[in-house]
């Protein structure tokens, strides 16, 4: 099956926008009338539902931030009564106090539908065996992907995270054709498999990875595809949107954001002005059909750009490009903005070092000092100190060129940098300790 919901997925853009306008208008009326939180916010902004006369009037509405959920912990801004909720998820709280999201049956349904479209678009369906190696539980990844995969009639292998050797055995024994997990966990699986004498490429049926929940790069995609012999697809989402929700299609030219579910804006994080398609800025999403926790102009904090053109797969819905970093992950080193993703990107072009790295930022005297620790690849190890020194200065040189800031590099033993089974924490900023 090529399309899960052809009527929606190939709907002409004008029709989609009309649909978005209708959905936005009724959402705003509903929230203004029935939620004190949204009502007060709109009053403060001096905007009334009647002011929404066309789609671009969304810009008149106030922004929402993660702190709105934290400040109203656990469920004070939910717009559905508890008895209508069928599930809670709780975010990990890596950037502060945890946040709770609630779902009605319709919310879960749209979430699964969204994933069903995405999974179909990468060629998965009935007959496929999808290993879900996202964590099951409070985290949205495991259960979200689970129901999405069941929706398309695939067989789910719900391995969750951890016990990697067993995951690899089951992948082989049951013939999993796709795996959903974080890219760093897939790299870990690849490494453990090699130690077990298993080649993912030759000894398994795996042909697709649905990878997300942490930033990764195009180069990492190519590396994963080449090494493991699979197609690696990006998946995007946050718990506030529902969870992992939107994916690449088979064209791998960006993540399709379904217009009937979400209205996307890219804004300049400083001026809050809208940016043109193609310009890099902060992703801002309005969820058009959520019942329990609608998000209006939610400032996710991810940096990306929007592609409005019709995709070569035929789908008319806009695509976001790979996440370039986070507004709040941005490190400022000697006044220069540095994203960990830039470092990852630069390292991927240097085969002498592995794909893992750790950034340590310290203040030495008055100056910021950035140390990047990398592992020497097995193939690159030379008995000669000079060759190793050369690798180090080469890495320092390339990082300096791409970041415009001085970087010290430390070569460490392979396997010695921490591997993360969930979201990677690759930065140790000692300045803030």
């Amino acid at each position: 099956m090529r399309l899960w919901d052809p009527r929606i997925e190939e709907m002409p853009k004008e029709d989609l926008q009309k649909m978005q306008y209708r959905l936005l208008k009724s959402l705003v009326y509903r929230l203004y009338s029935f939620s004190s939180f949204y009502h007060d916010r709109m009053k403060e902004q001096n905007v009334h539902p009647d002011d929404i006369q066309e789609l671009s009037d969304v810009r008149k509405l106030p922004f929402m931030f993660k702190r709105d959920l934290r400040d109203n912990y656990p469920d004070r801004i939910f717009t559905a009564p508890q008895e209508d909720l069928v599930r809670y998820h709780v975010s990990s709280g890596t950037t502060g106090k945890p946040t709770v999201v609630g779902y009605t049956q319709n919310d879960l349904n749209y979430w699964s539908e969204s994933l069903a479209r995405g999974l179909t678009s990468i060629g998965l369906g009935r007959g496929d065996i999808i290993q879900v190696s996202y964590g099951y539980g409070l985290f949205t990844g495991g259960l979200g992907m689970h129901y999405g995969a069941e929706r398309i009639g695939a067989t789910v292998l719900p391995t969750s995270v951890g016990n990697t050797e067993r995951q690899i055995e089951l992948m082989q024994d049951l013939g999993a054709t796709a795996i959903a997990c974080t890219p760093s966990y897939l790299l870990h699986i690849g490494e453990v498999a090699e130690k077990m004498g298993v080649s993912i490429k030759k000894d398994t049926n795996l042909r697709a990875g649905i990878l997300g929940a942490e930033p990764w790069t195009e180069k990492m995609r190519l590396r994963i595809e080449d090494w493991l012999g699979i197609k690696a697809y990006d998946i995007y989402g946050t718990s506030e949107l529902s969870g992992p929700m939107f994916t690449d299609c088979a064209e791998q030219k960006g993540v399709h954001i379904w217009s009937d579910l979400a209205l996307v804006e890219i804004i300049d994080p400083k001026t809050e002005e809208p940016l043109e398609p193609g310009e890099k800025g902060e992703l801002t999403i309005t969820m058009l059909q959520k019942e329990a926790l609608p998000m209006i102009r939610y400032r996710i904090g991810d940096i990306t750009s929007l592609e409005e053109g019709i995709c070569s797969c035929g789908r008319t819905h806009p695509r976001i490009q790979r996440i370039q970093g986070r507004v709040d992950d941005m490190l400022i080193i000697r006044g220069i903005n540095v994203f960990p993703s830039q470092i990852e990107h630069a390292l991927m072009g240097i085969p002498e070092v592995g794909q893992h790295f750790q950034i340590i930022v310290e203040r030495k005297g008055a100056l910021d000092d950035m140390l990047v620790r990398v592992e020497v690849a097995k193939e690159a190890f030379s008995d000669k100190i000079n060759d190793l020194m050369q690798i180090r200065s080469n890495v320092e040189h390339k990082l300096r060129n791409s970041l415009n800031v001085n970087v010290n590099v430390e070569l460490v033993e392979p396997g010695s940098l921490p591997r993360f089974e969930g979201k990677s924490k690759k930065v140790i900023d000692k300045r803030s300790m």
Partner: protein
Amino acid sequence: MDTKKFVIRQISIFSENRPGRLAAIAHALGEENINILAFSIAEANGFGVVRALVDHPEKAHDKLVKLGFNTAFTDVIAVKMRDQPGGLYEVAKILGDSGINIEYSYAYSGKEGAVLILRVDLVEDAIKKIKNSGATLLENSVFH
């Protein structure tokens, strides 16, 4: 001349320069009952390379790789020196006169007397020149 029998397989191990790394390597080799006949450490800022001649290089390599160490084989040669003043000079002069560069070297004094382990840029040439000059090269069977 069969030069192959004089080529000795040294194992080289990448190591971070922090406490306990040499102990970890030595412990691993001890566990496998591998004897270290000669070794040296080269260090640079933050990391080093441990080089060793052992009686079972393959076994040592496999064990260290299994433990996650970055390990490689390097070809070296071993020359017997006179264990008295001028002994090192005689060997070094042969190579210097022949335009062969010594990348690194280390020595030990064992039951064969004083022995100089050499990593040179032109292994075959070095073996021929040393042989022709009358000095004694140790065969790899002495080690492995």
